[in-house]
């Protein structure tokens, strides 16, 4: 169906649909206009994208795409007017909504869902495409990793002119490198893990199936790999993070080595995965010709994106919230927590809505065990609270330390009750549980709802 509505009129009508749904409180109204546009006239998305005088850039990855694109937005903020889907609405409809609300933007910056990437690529024709990593995530929704990788490969082939910005540490993505691609990766074997993690995914050569030899494995299967049989190896790095310092929960620092010179980067975000995010953001910014000092200043200013790593004061206690959504991401959350101060009380929330993944089997592939030693009380909550409790019980946590409280709000209160005054309560929620917990906290006046604070 294609209705002959003039684009400007259409856009005005759809924008007011967004405002209406925001007033009605239906989840921020972040995608409704885009959904309508997508239905009425999908070609309009291409038209709107073409009006951005500096074109568009896309960011996709299983883990870190929201944080990475928010870092890029912060780097660009002083110099470029950017249309950015900051609320995380990363399907075609979310991109369409952002284009509708662009208000004089020059450049489109879109984080894109892994499965939606081919369609968004077709509509938006980006000038640069950043591909961060591919981990197993929601097998019920995305299908197997190989299928997503094959679709990405086709999408990349359809963009011969686009600048590729690739994480060379991921074999599936390093394999997409071509002349002119900007490949980034970590170069600091001190930060390598002694062995591949259980949840490592792409550990067999993408070309011949032989297990890779790793000179260094950093996060999951990301690292410095080489196939002993056919020689497929990590491509040469144009950008690297060296001399990495991880300062527990307080932040991280590293030397950013680039073709334009080396510089020191300080982050207020913790963990090796955020070093990856910052490195990816720097690479994309470099592809957009931002000078090095602009990149380091932007990364330094950057504060955590909602929920992914967030501290919220609640009376005389604090909440520390880290989103968990798949084995690789959850492993890094656990690693970060343990390298800081391992929590004594934790509320872990497992929901099984579509956005979380209906299939909750992934929790059994997370290495939660490093948390157990210091844990005095665990409150398991969410729609699959009992399943989560079993994960910890069979992981070795004594059953008397586990409480099952399916209601998120009651679980939060129970967690706060167990936390001494002045102390910190760690929350590890899946996506919809994170949104719900944040709403509970917001309704009590402790933090604003995300669509109000999103930049």
């Amino acid at each position: 169906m294609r209705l002959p509505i003039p684009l400007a009129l259409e856009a005005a009508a759809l924008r007011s649909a967004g405002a209406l749904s925001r007033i009605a409180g239906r989840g921020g109204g972040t995608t409704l206009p885009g959904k309508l546009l997508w239905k009425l006239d999908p070609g309009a998305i291409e038209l709107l994208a073409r009006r951005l005088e500096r074109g568009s850039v896309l960011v996709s990855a299983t883990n870190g795409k929201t944080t990475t694109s928010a870092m890029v937005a912060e780097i660009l903020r002083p110099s470029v007017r950017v249309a950015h889907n900051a609320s995380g609405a990363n399907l075609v409809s979310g991109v369409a909504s952002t284009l509708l609300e662009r208000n004089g933007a020059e450049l489109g910056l879109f984080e894109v869902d892994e499965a939606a990437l081919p369609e968004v690529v077709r509509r938006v024709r980006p000038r640069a495409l950043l591909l961060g990593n591919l981990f197993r995530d929601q097998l019920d929704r995305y299908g197997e990793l190989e299928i997503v990788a094959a679709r990405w490969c086709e999408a990349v082939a359809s963009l011969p002119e686009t600048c590729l910005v690739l994480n060379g540490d991921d074999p599936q993505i390093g394999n997409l490198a071509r002349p002119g691609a900007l490949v980034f990766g970590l170069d600091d074997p001190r930060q390598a893990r002694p062995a591949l993690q259980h949840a490592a995914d792409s550990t067999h050569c993408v070309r011949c199936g032989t297990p890779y030899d790793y000179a260094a494995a950093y996060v999951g299967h990301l690292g410095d790999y080489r196939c002993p049989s056919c020689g497929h190896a990590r491509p040469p790095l144009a950008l690297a993070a060296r001399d990495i310092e991880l300062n527990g929960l307080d932040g991280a620092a590293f030397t950013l080595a680039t073709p334009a010179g080396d510089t020191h980067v300080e982050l207020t975000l913790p963990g090796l995965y955020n070093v990856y995010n910052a490195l990816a953001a720097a690479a994309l910014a470099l592809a957009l010709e931002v000078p090095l000092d602009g990149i380091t200043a932007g990364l330094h200013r950057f504060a955590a994106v909602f929920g992914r790593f967030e501290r919220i004061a609640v009376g005389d206690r604090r909440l520390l919230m880290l989103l968990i959504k798949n084995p690789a991401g959850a492993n890094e959350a656990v690693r970060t927590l343990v390298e800081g101060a391992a929590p004594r009380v934790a509320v872990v929330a497992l929901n099984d809505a579509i956005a979380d993944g209906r299939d909750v089997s992934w929790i059994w592939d997370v290495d939660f065990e490093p948390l157990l030693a210091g844990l005095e009380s665990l409150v398991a909550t969410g729609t699959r609270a009992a399943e989560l409790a079993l994960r910890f019980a069979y992981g070795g946590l004594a059953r008397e330390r586990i409480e099952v409280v399916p209601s998120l709000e009651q679980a939060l209160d129970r967690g706060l009750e167990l936390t001494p005054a002045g102390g910190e309560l760690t929350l590890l929620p899946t996506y919809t549980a994170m949104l719900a917990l944040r709403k509970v906290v917001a309704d009590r006046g402790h933090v604003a709802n995300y669509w109000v604070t999103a930049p």
Partner: protein
Amino acid sequence: MRIVVGHLYPDYLNIYADRGNIAVLAERARVRGHELDVRAIGMHDDVPEVDLFYVGGGQDREQALVAEDLAGKAEVLHAAVADGAAVLAVCGGYQLLGRSYRDLSGAELPGVGLLPLRTVAGKRRMIGDVLLDCAWAGETLAGFENHAGRTSLEAGAEPLGRVVSGFGNDGESGYEGCRAGRVYGTYLHGPLLPRNPWFADRLLMEALAHAGVEVELTPLADELEHAAHTVSAARARARGGR
């Protein structure tokens, strides 16, 4: 008593939380005073003397990588089963225990032939919560399936259960999984054993019998297990028929 578990290809077939199933067997053995000795059996490895074999699920690519090696182990696996060893195979492992697996291109992977069934890859994935009625045991199984393969049982083969809700072997027959003596195959990952403790205990008893002791295992309280089963079963029921 020491129970030896042979975990086949843990580096290749581990996609659906297979280690959750192993952790459940280990802990439920431990609290009854037994010890689970889990040994990885990889590519080109010899098959040791084992009381219980476990084969997990993998992506198509990994499955193809191990299929030939596994078929090469068929003779020794058949001998172990004839000797009373138990086997649990999930998803991809289930398919490989049949006679053959035909992929979308029409290429045929050899199977081990421990279960009387064949699998043909389909285009549509069958995904969702499943509830099975296992009348032969007077119990139910709740889990999650995600497979494109359509499995047909040969005439006279015993399914693991009748599908109450979900797709099952092929989305049509109304049956799921297969069992032959102490060999069990199923598409239910879930993982299967944490929320179906009766099945874990049955496998342990059969493995113990092979190890030389016929015992009844002391019942456990299993409150969390039953709560998780209830939620999972309710998810499947809410989804309704196929």
